[in-house]
């Protein structure tokens, strides 16, 4: 056999592997023994679905409205971590094994190099994971019984999003009908709403959500033999604020403009001297992370926050010795306009925050009054309630934990939240095609991109849920993940809230 033909044969053989088995298994009608699984909990992870989007749909569509007014559905704000980006956020929600960084591209300090840099990181999204190779998906995907429907599913998700969404729903319900005869929990991940938000319009996201709503209702009608309890939850929101091409920021240029040298390794930075940082450009999102030496972090944050494209920069802060003479607290600084806005402390033993006087809380839309005192103390829950519906929801917890190795192994030393409509360009498209994926963004600290949603028929909900606590409220989901042999990370100890006592009903128009 000629080598070329042999190669072609092997490729066909390889590509056929899963297809034959996929066809075989999915055309065998197998039924569980009667009596099992009278109630089946279905958890659908909807990437990028905003609380505001769902609110609009409820207001517009009577059939959806009925589900929430006297119906079985409950709704809660979901507060994403910062950065509000999918890979890190799903890992935070599901307590799955930490990723290297916030996204595919990350800085690995053990090798002093950027992993999956640039197009490689993008391409990695499209390469199908194959057992026994280096191509694999983030661990959180393991939580989902269904997340894709073919080798090139990710490519189609971006290329033909509407068709891909229809395909996802078809596959999901195709599987659910039979799977539910054996398992009391079914989980699925639907990525297309996020892609629509990035690349298309808010109306399309709303229409697609309505399609999903009807498919759920139709499925439940067809299967009265079981009590299907659906829960829909997202990982972040989308702000639906488009960015023009000149608002897509090449952050290397920003860094040079404020006297910081962008480098690709600490070694290069140290040889370079002066002010330097490793920028992780990520995808087209409204945040960015920088890695640098601890001694440089505050200066780097201060300088980059001076860019008109930056809303806030976050770094570790210098301990306020008047409040914390023994340096027992964790201190975080928020920067804007080239100056420090606030440096706040956190006491992990009491789960309390220390907000000093002299800070510009108004600029952060945080209604605290420190006048006449050196500082004020809030417990975590009080600050959560205070900031939830402000411009920066759960600001202090999110800013603080963004710099910790929770959800990610190698967090940045400086995180940047862009001033919308500015956003990181992420990747450059050839042929003046940079306008794509510029219809909506997420990632930053602002509310519009941060408040996702939890919808459920399973239980009553508090008005808002911090991303770290979703599994606490849905233990069946956690048990399902453990059955799927997932190791669940403990998470950040100070993230728990007492949801029984949270009451924001006066602030929220349900």
């Amino acid at each position: 056999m000629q080598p070329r033909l042999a190669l072609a044969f092997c490729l066909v053989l390889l590509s056929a592997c899963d297809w034959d088995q996929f066809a075989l298994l999915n055309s065998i009608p197998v039924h569980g023994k009667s009596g099992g699984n009278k109630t089946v909990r279905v958890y659908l992870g909807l990437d990028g679905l905003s609380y505001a989007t769902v609110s609009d749909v409820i207001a517009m569509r009577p059939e959806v409205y009925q589900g929430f007014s006297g119906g079985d559905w409950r709704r809660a704000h979901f507060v994403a971590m910062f950065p509000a980006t999918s890979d890190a956020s799903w890992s935070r929600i599901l307590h799955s094994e930490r990723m290297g960084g916030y996204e595919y591209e990350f800085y690995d300090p053990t090798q002093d190099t950027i992993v999956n840099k640039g197009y490689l990181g993008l391409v990695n999204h499209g390469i199908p994971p194959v057992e026994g190779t280096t191509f694999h998906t983030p661990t959180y995907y393991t939580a989902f019984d269904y997340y894709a429907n073919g080798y090139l599913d990710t490519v189609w998700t971006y290329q033909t999003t509407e068709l891909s969404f229809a395909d996802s729903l078809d596959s999901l319900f195709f599987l659910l009908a039979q799977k539910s005869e054996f398992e009391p929990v079914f989980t699925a991940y639907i990525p297309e709403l996020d892609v629509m938000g990035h690349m298309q319009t808010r109306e399309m996201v709303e229409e697609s959500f309505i399609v999903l709503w009807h498919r759920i209702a139709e499925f439940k009608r067809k299967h009265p033999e079981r009590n299907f309890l659906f829960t829909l939850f997202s990982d972040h929101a989308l702000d639906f604020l488009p960015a023009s091409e000149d608002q897509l920021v090449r952050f290397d240029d920003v860094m040079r403009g404020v006297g910081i040298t962008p480098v690709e390794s600490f070694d290069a930075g140290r040889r370079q001297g002066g002010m330097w940082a490793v920028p992780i450009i990520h995808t087209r999102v409204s945040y960015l992370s920088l890695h640098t030496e601890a001694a440089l972090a505050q200066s780097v944050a201060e300088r980059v926050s001076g860019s008109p494209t930056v809303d806030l920069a976050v770094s570790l802060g210098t301990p306020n010795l008047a409040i914390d003479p023994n340096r027992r607290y964790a201190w975080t600084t928020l920067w804007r306009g080239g100056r420090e806005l606030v440096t706040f402390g956190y006491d992990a033993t009491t789960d309390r925050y220390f907000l000093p006087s002299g800070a510009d809380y108004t600029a952060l839309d945080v209604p605290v009054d420190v006048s006449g005192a050196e500082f004020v103390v809030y417990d975590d829950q009080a600050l959560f309630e205070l900031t939830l519906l402000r411009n920066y929801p759960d600001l202090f917890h999110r800013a603080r934990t963004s710099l910790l190795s929770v959800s990610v192994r190698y967090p940045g030393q400086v995180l940047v939240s862009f001033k919308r409509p500015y956003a990181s360009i992420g990747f450059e498209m050839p042929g003046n095609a940079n306008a794509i994926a510029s219809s909506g963004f997420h990632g930053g600290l602002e509310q519009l991109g941060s408040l996702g949603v939890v919808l459920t028929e399973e239980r009553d909900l508090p008005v808002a849920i911090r991303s770290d606590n979703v599994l606490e409220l849905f233990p069946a989901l956690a048990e399902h993940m453990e059955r799927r042999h997932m190791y669940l990370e403990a998470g950040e100890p100070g993230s728990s809230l007492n949801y029984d006592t949270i009451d924001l009903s006066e602030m929220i128009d349900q």
Partner: protein
Amino acid sequence: MMLMPSLALVALTFTPTPNSESTPGAPLQPKAIELAWQGDEATPHTDVAVRTEAAEVEPDNPFDHAANGIYPLWENNGHLLPHRRALIGSSNVLFGIGGVVQLGVAPTSLVMRTPNFQLKVPLYRDDRVLLAGQLGTYVLMPGADSAFASSRYTSRIYNPDHTIVVAPLSVAATIKVASWLQLHPSVTALGVFGSKVRSEVTPGAFVTAELLALENHSLLLHGGEIGMWDHDQYIFGASYRLNWQWLEARAGYFYRISPDGMQGQPLVSAGLLL
């Protein structure tokens, strides 16, 4: 190679686009065979001389027709491989014995925690119709439900900790409708057994229309129903088949449509003809 006389006749009479010109030393003129097959109405051979001559020769290409369907489990046809001829393929490894038995294994399923075999026997033959019966067994070992090479594929079966035995028994035919068209209907009773599943038999029917285009090429349209009165899903698809010298290649796209949803997928196979 020795062939049973009846099988040789069948092979000849079911060769609408014979490859004899590429087979040196073939004693039977291709023209004669084509005459026997041209026209929409097949003409049964009654001539003893022709029968004898045909019985003594090897068919020009025993792989003119696929020896099984491309869609696993449910699709089949009336053809069998001749004695000691084999197809070593990505989807199937088939071996003919004496013209009366065809043994088969689905190798990709085999390595995906699903040991399996198929045994096919001829049931009836005449000038227009080939009829065969097939018994298969697929043992879904624990974990077979998720034993895909890529996690981007998911099955609706759930057997992480128990074995499921699937045993299809089918009767399939190949019917020559015209020189350019054959139909391959099959009916299957699929038995499913296991300690944690409901033991039951599901009926299914499948039909494939094979359009014989040019030499070595076929276009096939597939349709099937699984469950019948207790409907589970429909299967529709189209495929192309090439048999060229030692190579058989098939490629198609199929949809499974259940009352709740739908899945679409390609099917591709390549095989060496020995």
